[in-house]
């Protein structure tokens, strides 16, 4: 446990001193903010919800995850510090969880900044707070899934760009399973949709907290964190 926090702390230090976290946060805030205000304008300010923010935000979280995680393990390999970590008395899962936790904290921090949008609505109008609350829960859960996919991608290669591309591939692949599932007849279509990252999100936007959705996102996160640990372990047997 102590070593998980230690690694998390180290990663947070790196996030705070390097430009990447700031850049992706800035991109995220700019694009989701634009979407937020465009939506409000389109509905002539009649629907005071954060729908605009969420429409862009859910996709931006995928991008955010791919970019934030791409250097996590890749960089350590390049620097040679990976060899130091793997010969220290630390378990593979402690490394993976520490890194994952640091990303979650950065994501959480960024989402706190986006609270600007609902606060604006509260000041200027009378939004329904329930869906806003569940939407944030949904974003965090989606973040859990996509960050763990990013970490898995980063464990596969010493090249950051390749890592980001792999993560992007898996993330958007899983995302568009949903729309594809809608085109395919059931029951195949239904199954495809169930495995899609996008299928479970609209419920949160409507203010519904579906256990299946929570289980889905947490399972995806657990599976890819487990795969990351395995990928590191097999490396020793190479």
């Amino acid at each position: 446990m102590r070593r998980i926090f230690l690694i998390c702390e180290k990663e947070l230090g790196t996030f705070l001193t390097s430009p990447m976290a700031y850049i992706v946060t800035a991109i995220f805030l700019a694009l989701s903010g634009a979407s937020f205000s465009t939506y409000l304008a389109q509905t002539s300010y009649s629907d005071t919800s954060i729908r605009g923010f969420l429409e862009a935000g859910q996709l931006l979280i995928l991008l955010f995850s791919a970019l934030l995680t791409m250097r996590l393990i890749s960089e350590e390999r390049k620097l040679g510090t990976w060899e130091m970590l793997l010969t220290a008395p630390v378990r593979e899962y402690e490394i993976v969880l520490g890194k994952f936790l640091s990303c979650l904290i950065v994501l959480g921090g960024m989402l706190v900044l986006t609270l600007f949008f609902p606060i604006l609505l509260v000041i200027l109008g009378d939004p329904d707070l329930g869906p806003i609350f569940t939407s944030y829960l949904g974003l965090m859960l989606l973040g859990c899934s996509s960050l763990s996919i990013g970490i898995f991608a980063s464990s596969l290669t010493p090249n950051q760009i390749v890592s980001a591309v792999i993560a992007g591939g898996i993330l958007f692949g899983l995302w568009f399973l949903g729309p594809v599932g809608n085109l395919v007849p059931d029951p195949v279509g239904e199954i495809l949709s169930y495995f899609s990252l996008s299928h479970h999100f609209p419920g949160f936007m409507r203010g519904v907290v579906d256990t299946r959705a929570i289980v889905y996102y947490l399972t995806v996160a657990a599976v890819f964190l487990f795969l990351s640990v395995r990928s590191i372990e097999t490396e020793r047997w190479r």
Partner: protein
Amino acid sequence: MIKIENLTKFYGERLAVDDISFNIERGEVVGFLGPNGAGKTTTMRAITGYLMPTDGEIWVADYNMRKDPLKGRQQIGYLPETIPLYTDMSTRAYLRFVARLRGLDRKKAQKRIDEVVELCRLEEYINVLTGKLSKGFRQRVGLAQAIIHDPEVLILDEPTVGIDPLQVVQTKELIKELGRKRTILLSTHILPEVNLICERVIIIHQGRIVAEDSIENLSSILEGRQRLRLKINGPVDEVTENLSKINALSEVSYRDPYYLLEFPIDQEPQNEINQMLTRGGWTLLSMEAVELSLEDIFVKLTSKREEEQ
């Protein structure tokens, strides 16, 4: 302290280490020699637990590295071939991270950082980003992280490679100092490097151990010969000619400004040489015995092995 039994490592199809075994006792400082691609790094990575052997067993301080990897790793300080540095951290932050990773609490970590920084003479660079350090200082920070938890066993992969001669001397002194109370295995392919530090050498070539002995024994076993290096005040041609006439000497050569003499171990040509010099009216400026360099030993051993095969 380190025990290796039938270690074999394949990278896919490629055999990197081929069934090697050796023992290193507590307190020994052992040189691990071999040319590029011999399998030094692979062996060291197996000892430190970075790689799992394809076959064979390794014990470090009585912990089996397969069954008890975490306890085993805790006993080892390791300087990998590529120095592991987080380039965006200061020396202090980096050492603190490694110390904490190695299980030291905050107070203990602080104390050890002060100690290793003094030992490795890093005081001036404590707040410099490790990415901004010169190669020699990076190496020292690498050594500092290896000893931060005061391990019993040190595994150093080419600790003197790529740094200038003055720093090499300092690093060697540091390693010697560390070796007073630790067990050290250090690899190199710059052979004379280990001469002054190591009591014993293990020579590896193409994944196999070709020799294992004390440096002195290796030289004498290999050759049964001695060497002398002379500096003589006199005309080179004449002196060489006269030296060649001495029967006890089997080889005479001149490499400015020294004459190199070789002779069987049971001969004592010193007197004859003196008489010859007096006859010619030349003066002897210096005479010293020369050990066979590790370079020579290595070349001889490997060619000998190839003949056998």
